């Protein structure tokens, strides 16, 4: 059993499970019915992807996939903090949806050539499904960018808030060096981060959204939205990356999470915890 494999699969599964849970919170209260259907369906996809990642991990450890999904304490989850943040408003939801699915595509493209055949095949399968998510997110971003200024401003604010948090998706997973050496993770997190920054920077340029700050997005940059809707890089010096720094969200891959996750975890695992060992 490879510790690196289980660590990588846990991080992948946790990202999908926790964000899938957030997406599912739009079921029944999205701005209109088509979006109710869309977010419910995207949530179902993401939770299904989590189940598939957990199944490979469970086969390696002998645990059940359900125990991995719902049977751990909050500090044992390895998702990026951006996934646990509350949905907030529609702008925040869409900005996160767009940034997450771009990040996920970068990651899946790398995993398609993983040395673990089952993981590589799963990545190819998931990537085909995620195309629908990406296009859904893109369609919304374009619609809002071309729409009235109020929506555009809200979107810019939301993108600037989520962008730095999304960088936490590329915080190295535990045992990353081993995962790279074993070919499980063919592209190291640092390289994937660079691809993500370039790709989203170019996309935001094409959308006509201010992107100068994004291009300087190293580990120490953070962004603020000005009242004119432009993004301004914070030049107050280096910002230490930690989960307690406002606007920055690292630490998730090491199991450090915010109170937002405690609340989410309470809801997500309540049934599982209420009936230990039950067979449904």
């Amino acid at each position, binding site marked *: 059993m490879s510790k690196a494999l289980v660590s990588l699969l846990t991080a992948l599964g946790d990202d999908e499970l926790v964000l899938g849970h957030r997406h599912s919170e739009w079921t029944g209260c999205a701005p209109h019915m088509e979006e109710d259907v869309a977010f419910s369906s995207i949530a*179902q*996809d993401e939770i*299904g*992807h989590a189940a598939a990642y957990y199944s490979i991990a469970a086969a390696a450890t002998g645990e059940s996939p359900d125990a991995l999904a719902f049977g751990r304490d909050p500090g044992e989850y390895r998702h990026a903090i951006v996934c646990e943040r509350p949905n907030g408003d529609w702008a925040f939801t869409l900005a996160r949806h767009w940034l997450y699915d771009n990040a996920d595509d970068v990651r899946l493209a790398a995993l398609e050539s993983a040395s673990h055949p089952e993981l590589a*095949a799963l990545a190819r*399968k998931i990537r085909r499904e995620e*195309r629908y998510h990406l296009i859904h997110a893109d369609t919304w971003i*374009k619609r809002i960018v071309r729409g009235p200024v109020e929506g555009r401003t809200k979107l810019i604010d939301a993108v600037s808030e989520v962008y730095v948090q999304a960088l936490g998706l590329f915080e190295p997973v535990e045992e990353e060096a081993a995962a790279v050496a074993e070919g499980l993770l063919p592209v190291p997190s640092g390289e994937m981060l660079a691809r993500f920054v370039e790709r989203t920077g170019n996309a935001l340029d094409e959308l006509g959204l201010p992107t100068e700050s994004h291009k300087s997005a190293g580990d120490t940059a953070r962004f603020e939205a000005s009242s004119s809707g432009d993004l301004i890089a914070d030049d107050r010096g280096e910002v230490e990356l930690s989960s307690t720094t406002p606007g920055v969200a690292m630490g998730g891959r090491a199991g450090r999470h915010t109170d937002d996750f405690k609340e989410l975890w309470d809801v997500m695992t309540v049934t599982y915890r209420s009936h230990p060992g039950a067979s449904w």
Partner: protein
Amino acid sequence: MVTVTTLEERVWDALAGVPDPEIPAVSVVDMGMIREVAVSEGVASVVVLPTFTGCPAIPIIERDVAAAVESVDGVSEARVRTSFDPPWTDDRITEDGRRKLKEFGLAPPTGHGPVLITEIGLPAVARCPFCGSGDTRAENPFGPTPCRALYYCEACRNPFEQFK
């Protein structure tokens, strides 16, 4: 003339009677979800390719496939395994399957695979399964199950679903 059917052929025949739980008009064979069947000393191994990773019907399909295979004379045990290799694509649906999907009221896939033509990622023209018109518009790339998208037919004014 005597027709000889092998045990594997009989397993395939049994699988042809297993409906897709969400679209009972088509079988798992029609959908191209059976990758392979191998029988050795009474043990039948079947590999199932789910259409979508998050399909909630996967455990039901596994159960139904196992039951059908075990009912075949000469099979003592069924071993059913799910795989995503190769990924299921819509070009695995048989001609028969396409016809049955249409009769069920689902527009069959275009046969071009998941080529995303329009901005929202659906075939620009899906043919209405009710009236055959191509004067349709995509409403939503997501639908009631992970594998279906929503369309509207301008000609007969019916909403319909397309298999993604």
